[in-house]
């Protein structure tokens, strides 16, 4: 069966520090991969998605970036965090599809910026 792992579960970082969040998927190949951010009481905001190794689509201009160095690995990074980067970050995967397949989410990373 397929599983998705996200780490760390919680992270407290000072303003201006770098960030690296990692997500890996097991049990499937060539998945679509997604990074979302969820602010308190808000919906899921799509940040990046990838349909293949090295292929990254950015949805929101910001100081975050994403990379997909391997088929089942998705990394969210920042060189300098802002206070506004606080939030709940979720990684998800789906079978290669255009909306007709469910998304499977990790348990998220709670990021607090001080």
């Amino acid at each position: 069966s397929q599983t998705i792992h996200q780490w760390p579960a919680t992270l407290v970082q000072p303003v201006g520090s770098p960030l690296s969040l990692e997500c890996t998927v097991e049990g499937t190949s060539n998945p679509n991969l997604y990074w979302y951010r969820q602010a308190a009481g808000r919906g899921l905001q799509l940040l990046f998605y990838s349909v293949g190794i090295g292929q990254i689509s950015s949805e929101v201009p910001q100081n975050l970036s994403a990379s997909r160095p391997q088929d089942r690995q998705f990394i969210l990074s920042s060189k300098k965090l802002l206070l506004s980067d606080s939030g709940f970050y979720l990684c998800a995967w789906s079978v290669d599809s255009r909306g007709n397949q469910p998304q499977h989410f990790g348990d998220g990373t709670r990021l607090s910026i001080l």
Partner: protein
Amino acid sequence: SQKIEQNSEALNIQEGKTATLTCNYTNYSPAYLQWYRQDPGRGPVFLLLIRENEKEKRKERLKVTFDTTLKQSLFHITASQPADSATYLCALDEGGTYKYIFGTGTRLKVLA
């Protein structure tokens, strides 16, 4: 652009009753509409998917309807239980792309 509206107010119902949650969208009718459950501090979990040519979909105590004329989906939980308490999110495909749009969710609380 497409927007999804879900009732942001919490819904409180008594155990055993049917809970009905609403998802309205504003623009084009999506080819697919999905419902997810999210517990506090956890990622959303997929529940049901309904296609635009389907009027209704069922899974155990869950039922989803899809009315493209009203631009609305209803999500029903029959014989609700306290364990059904969670936030329920509606999601749409974005025009045949690889992207999904999520609503803000409705928090359901089932009272024992």
